């Protein structure tokens, strides 16, 4: 894993000190709320329904065990004993006091963590495949490139006041597990004809009120040109992106209104200008620096001890679903589901975080990942210890065998926490997962994705769910719109609206009915949800759902 150097450490330490002064200025009245708000947003501090919310960055979803222990400490000491892992591989604390946040940031800095650029009109956390460095189908590990982008984008003097937030995702595998198709910039590692690793670059993807799949800008950008090319994209966006209308300010709107061909022409022209200038030399990434960063992400060693399973009755189901193959012999990537039946998706208690940190140290080389599905992964678990690992997880309620299954529901915090939400999401997710479990549909349905957003901002990623749920307000009541056919991983696709919005209980029943309908009409268990949908269309689902609602 990447290790901070003096520059990195100084940045977070000084940023924490700066924010302490800004908080004191706000508390004394030296800064007004209007002056303070953009400053606190740049440090990941939101004001929500009940309290401030602090979003802590987990760069490309990678954590050391001591970092996870610090997050547990913060949850225990400054919050209500839990944290929420997000769809952008970060963590959110829902109850910190503003007066405590400077101390929290100081303690985070002590373990090389921060909340920089987790909000505001900045380049946010670069996200990636949570199986990076472990997946057998990787062209190359995407994490060094995420780290390079992190360093380039942090406190970028030109790109700190963009028209709107900006999100970048990187996949190292041909099978995209980072949803690059719905990011402002999506990057896919590829090889050129000579076998050199470079990047296919996409831009203009996104969710929210105008979901769009990204367009390809360049088939191949070399490693040394990556930062210059990203700079070109950001510069075109920064100069031409709309600032007159917050809802039309993302790069996806610019790409669409400009036209992809013209947008690409502008980016290419800017890229050429950069390369011909002194700036181009500054942005060229020296091979020595590439090698230095890559050196932090070496492959783990094989472990050829025989696997020692568990005698527990639930072990084999968990082993089949939550333990994923690893490219190194004797290793596996273990998904720790934060979606127990009836649980709040993505939440973990301080005690659970401490346990996972301990298990990472004991069984998995001390590394943890956060997934965009709001689960945790031990990416390099040793198969020889699978039984002991399972037993420890099960004792803490962390061994739900539903990784990637229908009850592995993604849910934004919704109106229970969020100022922007129209409706609640968490109790909807809880009820759906309970009903799926009770109906025995979870295992039967296979890898159906269900995602819930409490408002059009789509933090629950409902647009790219097989079954998406969007909360809408109707005459003061909570209603929900169903979409079908979205895909996040692989070739991204936006779901289609099924019909009129439904009230809460009708929606819960409808989601379960959609899962049941899929199981009933698919040709076999091998036919995936979107394949069934392509074959039969929306009609069977619409008839099932709206007959039920009546």
């Amino acid at each position, binding site marked *: 894993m990447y290790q901070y150097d003096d520059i990195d450490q100084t940045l977070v330490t000084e940023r924490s000190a700066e924010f302490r002064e800004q908080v004191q200025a706000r508390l004394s009245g030296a800064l007004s709320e209007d002056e303070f708000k953009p400053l606190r947003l740049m440090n990941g501090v939101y004001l*929500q329904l009940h309290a401030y919310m602090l979003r802590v960055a987990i760069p490309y979803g990678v954590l050391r065990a001591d970092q996870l222990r610090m997050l547990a400490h913060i949850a225990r000491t400054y919050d209500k004993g839990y944290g929420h892992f997000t769809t952008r591989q970060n963590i959110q604390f829902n109850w910190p006091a503003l007066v405590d946040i400077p101390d929290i940031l100081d303690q985070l800095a002590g373990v090389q963590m921060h909340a920089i650029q987790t909000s505001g009109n900045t380049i946010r956390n670069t996200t990636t495949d949570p199986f990076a460095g472990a997946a057998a189908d990787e062209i190359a590990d995407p994490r060094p490139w995420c780290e390079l982008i992190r360093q380039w984008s942090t406190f970028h003097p030109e790109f700190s006041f963009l028209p709107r937030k900006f999100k970048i995702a990187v996949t190292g595998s041909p099978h995209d597990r980072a949803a690059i198709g719905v990011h402002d910039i999506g990057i896919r590692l590829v090889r050129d004809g000579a076998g050199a690793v470079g990047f296919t670059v996409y831009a203009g993807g996104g969710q929210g009120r105008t979901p769009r799949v990204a367009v390809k800008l360049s088939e191949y950008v070399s490693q040394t040109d990556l930062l210059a090319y990203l700079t070109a994209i950001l510069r075109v966006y920064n100069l031409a992106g709309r600032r007159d209308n917050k809802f039309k300010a993302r790069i996806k709107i610019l790409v669409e209104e400009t036209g992809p061909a013209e947008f690409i022409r502008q980016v290419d022209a800017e890229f050429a200008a950069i390369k011909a200038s002194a700036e181009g030399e500054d942005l060229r990434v020296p091979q020595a620096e590439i090698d230095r960063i890559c050196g932090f992400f070496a492959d783990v060693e094989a472990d050829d001890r025989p696997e020692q399973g568990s005698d527990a009755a639930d072990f084999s189901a968990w082993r089949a679903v939550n333990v994923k193959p690893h490219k190194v012999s004797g290793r596996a990537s273990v998904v720790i589901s934060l979606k127990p039946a009836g649980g709040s998706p993505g939440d973990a208690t301080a005690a659970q975080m401490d346990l996972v940190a301990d298990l990472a140290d004991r069984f998995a080389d001390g590394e943890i990942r956060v997934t965009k599905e709001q689960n945790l992964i031990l990416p390099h678990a040793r198969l020889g210890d699978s039984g002991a690992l399972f037993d420890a997880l099960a004792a803490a309620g962390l061994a739900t065998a539903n990784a990637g299954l229908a009850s592995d529901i993604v849910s934004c915090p919704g109106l229970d926490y969020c100022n922007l939400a129209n409706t609640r999401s968490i109790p909807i997710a809880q009820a759906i997962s309970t009903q799926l479990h009770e109906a025995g549909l979870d295992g039967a349905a296979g890898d159906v994705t269900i995602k819930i957003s409490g408002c059009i901002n789509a933090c629950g990623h409902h647009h790219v769910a097989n079954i998406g749920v969007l909360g809408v307000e109707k005459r003061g009541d909570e209603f929900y719109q169903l979409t079908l056919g979205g895909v996040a991983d692989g070739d991204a696709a936006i779901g289609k609206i099924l019909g009129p919005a439904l009230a809460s209980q009708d929606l819960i029943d409808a989601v379960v009915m959609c899962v049941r309908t899929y199981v009933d009409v698919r040709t076999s268990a091998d036919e995936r949800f979107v394949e069934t949908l392509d074959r039969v269309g929306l009609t069977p689902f619409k008839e099932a759902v709206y007959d039920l609602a009546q």
Partner: protein
Amino acid sequence: MSKAITANRLTDGRVVYWTAGQDWAEDIADAAVFADDDSAVAALAVAQGQTLAIVGAYPIDVVEQGPDDGVADGQIVTPSGRKVVRETIRVHGPTAGSLHLTTSVGRNGAVAELAAA
């Protein structure tokens, strides 16, 4: 419709309500209730000036119930109107684990029964 004034406390973000004593209280039962828009607007202007105490003061629709409504002691103030779900969550906290709100209220000023907590 009656109004109350709410905000978030500056130091910790907790939900607070403007009182008749021109102070801030955590319990909505202590909120000052304004029967007309003019008095609510005037109170809001004063409340919004408390920038070292709170952030983001705004008016909310409420229903006030007392002995005539079957309330045994004192007054009960509950959110109402179009934002009833949001404001009820702000009163009682996150609802994780249940679809039901602790207090059910009607829209458009109708007084509703209080559900069992």
